[in-house]
């Protein structure tokens, strides 16, 4: 294959990754934005989403689409409810102290991951996509008759991958609409700006926190259900999305949905493209170093606001 088709292929893979990453990272960003809490167990809620997708789609018979739609509804609900429970049982009791929260969510990470290992097992399990037609993509080249179309071998994508991109965009617009245009969004912003004042105006801030923590986890689970048919469901799959979400959220500016989405596209695309041409490990090294240096030299972006 020529360089051109190769680059386009890498960009499509990158776009799929970016779409899923944006959803996951917005969940993390939402939690930090409203609650000022870093959820280290975020990747595990993502993993739960994929595992539930496998479980639902295998227990619901019939066409794969039935199971997929059921998973799309159930997985975020279950993951969200679980996260809200964790908030209620643990985070609230340490009073959302930043360091205790991180230690507690590291604990949660192990608990969720290892419980999945005990019940679901160590295997990676495939999930059948609801539809998966192959689309061959054309390319042009100079032939005997000047420019001509042809379909290079292996150059193409699938309808499901395009669906993932579109679905993620729609969901992100939905999140933005809820945050910016509804009463719920207003309550969230009020709790973020000044929890005490929000309380004085009759907002049940504790409930808002549980809801936000649940919603963040639900977004991660939703992203995982979307990606599960392309990857597989595995109990250790939460690590990479967690790391990448961190990277995205920090570079994009924590709490800002728009910034997070832009950074997700940037990181997802460049990760896809760099990984295709260089080593994926090198791409990750560059990305993690970038985060460290952004935090050191541009702290005002995110954490700086709270501490300074």
């Amino acid at each position, binding site marked *: 294959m020529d360089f051109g088709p190769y680059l386009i292929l890498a960009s499509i893979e990158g776009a799929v990754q970016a779409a899923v990453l944006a959803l996951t990272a917005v969940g993390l960003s939402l939690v930090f934005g409203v609650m000022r809490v870093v959820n280290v167990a975020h990747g595990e809620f993502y993993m739960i989403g994929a595992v539930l997708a496998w479980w639902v789609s295998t227990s619901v018979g019939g066409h794969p689409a039935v199971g997929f739609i059921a998973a799309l509804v159930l997985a975020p609900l279950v993951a969200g409810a679980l996260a809200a429970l964790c908030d209620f049982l643990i985070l609230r009791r340490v009073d959302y102290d930043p*360091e205790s929260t991180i230690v507690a969510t590291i604990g949660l990470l192990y608990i969720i991951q290892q419980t999945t290992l005990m019940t679901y097992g160590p295997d990676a399990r495939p999930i059948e996509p609801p539809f998966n037609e192959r689309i061959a993509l054309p390319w042009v080249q100079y032939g005997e008759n000047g420019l001509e179309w042809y379909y290079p071998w292996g150059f193409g994508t699938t309808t499901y991958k395009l669906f993932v991109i579109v679905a993620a965009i729609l969901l992100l617009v939905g999140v933005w609409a809820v945050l910016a245009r509804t009463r719920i969004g207003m309550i969230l912003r009020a709790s973020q700006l000044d929890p005490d004042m929000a309380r004085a105006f009759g907002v049940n801030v504790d409930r808002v926190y549980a809801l936000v923590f649940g919603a963040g986890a639900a977004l991660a689970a939703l992203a995982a259900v979307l990606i599960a048919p392309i990857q597989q469901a595995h109990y250790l799959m939460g690590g990479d999305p967690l790391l990448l979400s961190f990277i995205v959220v920090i570079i994009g500016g924590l709490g800002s949905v728009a910034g997070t989405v832009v950074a997700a596209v940037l990181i997802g695309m460049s990760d896809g493209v760099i990984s295709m041409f260089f080593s994926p490990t090198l791409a990750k090294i560059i990305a993690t170093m970038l985060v460290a240096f952004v935090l050191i030299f541009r702290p005002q972006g995110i*954490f*700086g606001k709270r501490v300074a």
Partner: protein
Amino acid sequence: MKREDWRPWALHGGLVATLALLYFVLPPYHAGVLPRVMVLSVYAMGYNILFGYTGLLSLGHAMFFSAGMYGLGLTIQHLDFTPAPAFLVGLIAATLLAAIVGALALRTVGVAFMIVTLMFAQSGFLAALYFGEYTRGDEGFAIQQADRVLWGVDLSNETNRFFAALILFAITLFTIAFVVRSAFGRALVAIRENEARAEMLGYNVTRLKLQAMILSGLIAGAGGAAYALLFGYAGATFASVQYSILPLLWVLLGGAGTTIGPFVGALFMFYLIDFSSEFTDAYLLVAGLALVLLTLFARAGIVGELRRRVWGWLP
């Protein structure tokens, strides 16, 4: 000035003496477990300097541990170093890394500091995988028995290994007991308790924190180098996030800011995991539960709670 309290010294001396005696009393399995626990407690004691005494929560100490480990392992493996200079290389590698990472990461505070250290450690882990040609990545490499003879003592031998671990443990324990009672150690505690006030009192807080970071990295590196030397193995697993979280867990469990807490925590956790791994592969579940329960119910850890409730003099 108050007379020097003899009890902390008796406690530390007693602990080391008891450990030495235990080797002759314990059944072989447990005598084999103890060197590992002692070396890992050295790592945890290094972590404790920064976390327990200075109040800085790092999520990246695995990079110092593995810097020590690879500093020793790679020079023995590829440059045919003998153990003593290789150990020194491990210490220098960890110290230098701690100085560089500290100088950068200490520009941030709180949650940002945790994430910056986490990211640097993650880059270190990925670098260990990237240079898999030399490090053999996750699989790691074994250090041959012939390369593990230090000054004529074969460290792969059970007895020698036990007492080598004990000597390192004792040196670290007494050094730390001394350091935390010195003016330097008191200044670190002052920073932990109230950084703004420590600064107002005229302490150069940034410099003290950097010194704490370097000392902490050096000790963690000594733990890593000793681990590679005594157990004859170096691998990227020891650079992973999990190995950054474990010392945090041990120190929290045993008691942050206490001299023997890291050892108590590491010992307790080792047996807890050992015990639970008889029932399930998912032994890390225990680590997770311990972390959550500690944050909820026992913020001071075992030794910390003892100090708070019974023996106020505990160091």
